[in-house]
């Protein structure tokens, strides 16, 4: 999920070419290609915002571009873009009360099982049962627990998750633990 290969190179080029607006455009466009899918996915999963997910993703990158143009210092660009996308998604959700985080019907659609030719019918039924239990368990987690788990699965370390969600590192650890604990319990029920 990371897409981190070549990232250091891109960032290095940003360092040396930042003053040239044209080159900065190109580098931001590269980062956009690398990260947009995971940000888009995250926005939908945490805010249920299908309609505006693309716009929010683009807005996050434009903010990055604007800040770099203004000579701002950004220590960890990927966390920064996720943070902007996260806040943007939640702000929009809050301002439109009729939008709620993914409802069960959408979840069902999202988690729709696919035929796996490698599994025989009996195995498929067993796997499907497990998947449904996990889905139900995940839906019952708090929003913070879901966000922490999704960001951790995107490869972020606790410190970066804390930065994206603007919470303490210990809060990240606690949320992850509770989330994992619930998933584990429901998985073994």
């Amino acid at each position, binding site marked *: 999920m990371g897409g981190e290969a070549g990232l250091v190179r891109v*960032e290095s080029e940003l360092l*040396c070419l930042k003053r040239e607006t044209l080159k900065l455009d190109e580098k931001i466009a590269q980062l956009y290609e690398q990260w947009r899918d995971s940000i*888009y996915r995250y926005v939908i999963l945490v805010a249920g915002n299908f309609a505006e997910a693309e716009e929010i993703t683009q807005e996050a990158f434009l903010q990055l571009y604007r800040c770099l*143009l203004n000579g701002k210092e950004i220590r960890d660009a990927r966390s920064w873009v996720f943070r902007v996308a996260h806040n943007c998604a939640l702000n929009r959700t809050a301002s439109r009360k009729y939008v709620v985080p993914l409802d069960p019907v959408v979840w069902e659609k999202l988690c729709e099982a696919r035929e796996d030719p490698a599994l025989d019918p009996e195995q498929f039924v067993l796997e499907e049962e497990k998947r449904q239990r996990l889905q139900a368990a995940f839906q019952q987690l708090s929003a913070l627990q879901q966000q922490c788990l999704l960001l951790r699965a995107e490869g972020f370390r606790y410190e970066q998750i804390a930065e994206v969600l603007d919470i303490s590192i210990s809060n990240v650890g606690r949320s992850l633990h509770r989330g*994992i604990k619930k998933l584990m319990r429901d998985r073994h029920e």
Partner: protein
Amino acid sequence: MNRRLGTDWSNRESHPSEEDLLYYVDGELPPREAASVREHLEACWTCRVRTEQVQETISSFVRFLTDSITPNLRPPASGWKPLNAQMARVAAEANTRPLLLQWLDAWRKLTMLWPLPRTLTLAALWSLLVFLLVFRVDRVPPVSANQLIQNAAEFQDRQLHAVAQPVVHQKLRIRRTVAASHQESSVAWELWNDAGHHRFRQQAEDASGRRVLAASRGAAFDPHDWTAGLELGDAGVSHQTSDGPAGLPRTLAELTQILLANRMDPRRPLSAESFEAWRESVPGRSEAVKESSLADGSKALTLTTEAPGPFRANAIIQTQLVVRGADWHPIEQRLKVQGERGILNYSLTETAFEVLPLSALPPLLFADLVPPPIPKPPAPVVPASPTIIPPVPVPTPADLADAEVEALFVLHRAKVCLGGRVSVVRSDADRIAVQGVVESAERRDEILTGLQSIPWITTEIQTADDTLSPAPNPEGSAEVAESSPSMQVVTLGVQSGKLPIQDLLEEYFAQGHPGALPAPGDINHKITELSNRAVLLSESALDEAWALRHLTESVTTLKTDDLRPSLRYALEVMVHDHLTALQAQMGNSRQLLEPVLVALLDRHRELAVGPSAGNTFAVPDSENSNWISSSHQLFATVEQIDRLTLALFADTSVPPARREAAMQELLAAMGGWDTKFQDLEAAVAKAFPGKPGSFTLNSPPE
């Protein structure tokens, strides 16, 4: 159960909590705690099983995301919209938004990073409104030093682009004050800068009348032109050699030397670019931007930059650049300079500025500059009194290395680094020469513009038309032609004779291998197409390999550790670009030719190609990996592939008896390519060790 920080788990009395185990598997425990948990797990079966349960839950969750969620979450139905147009809009808006909107932007950014409750947001907006009503808000927004310079440069750039064949006409009033004695002198300086043709004209005026000073043509700046102009008195310049009452020629000559010594451009003395060139050369500078009012009541911004001491003679101690608030146009620059006998103050105040089309100027203005400049004899410059006129600055080896890499990068970005049409060489101890031939005057101007701001560079770039003119430089032309692989004239196709493998190819295509059967008349066309593509790919690969080797040779003479970090990155970018392009060209070439050659050889001789022709993976020999030898070996391989490709697909004089050997050699050379490429990649990786994962997107490292 909460984590118990600092607990030693190595004894088996107590067990780590589940949260501890999660921290442990996520690698988030401090090293000592992690070690004690590891020791505990080795001994405790129960905890090991609990750890496995945590791991299994994580695995199931990740599988759930990747197998169930991700495939159902496709990108937007209409596909991703490109970001370029929106970025262009952002860049355009950045300088033109009213203050109030800029504040609102800042507020939006703030709330994106720290979302606030709506009531607090409304309260804050209400406070802002009250503030705006109480205080005037038409003030020019304070900006950072970087932003101020960038805005000024962009504004001037836009002005130049708005006029066809722009000529900048500028009038300045120069004032010089000696701090200790309060002695003051001044001169009116008028400049015409023909940016498109790199021509420059200037004149000065004092009580004794109008004086035409030196003119120059070409991107490289020769200080002799200027000081010689003063000394030789092109149009009545007085031969002042000491401080006179007016001191005019000396004032200008001294200022010119000061600007040069500080990397500023005397042809554009009051410009953001010239200021930035000095500013960039001053590490550890301190800066401040302040608002002020001009005489007409309009707003201005003053950027004050101070250099850290100690100061050598002629070093700038402090500068102040004043720009108009309305359009970022620089209108004044004040310099505080370390003279040999005290502090000197200069002010350059603009009294007129306009950008005119060349056609609007009298034709005689640059008339004597149309032909290439005749080298002037090394006339003595203004006889220098020991206190005032310093010698022309001499670059350090590090300065020259920086300039060389910057020049290479300009050529790389202009894509003239391939084929050796333009090269960068050390012309003498203190200059880097960029010389060669390009296809058009526009191309030449583009390159000269890129090189303009690089110090210690001389240029000698001709167009193809120039080289055909009656008086070319035969030595230079021969040298360029000899050094350039792309200058080799290759006759493509099979029109004039038969290729050595013509009959094999005819049979190959006639039998419809590997695709559909071609019509008989198409066979020759297919052979020509294959040959042309094979030769084209091979020549392109050779150009890339040549550029890589040339870059390597240039780089190994430099001490790369002494380069500025940004230039090391530029170097890395260039090498990476050539490696990537070379790999792509060679991959395409192999994809095209290997199946054909194998089929032809199999048909006539049951010949096993041997393991070297396959896609065997070879471990690079890192012991022997180094820049020079790896790039030379790679170049030799590409050259051999090119020679054999030409022999088989473009040369009609190769005897058929040699063709099978040539095919085998070509296959073997292509098979050996991987190893050579990996060797060079390893050498490159060694030369540019990777940076750690964290990074900073701040100002360029200097």
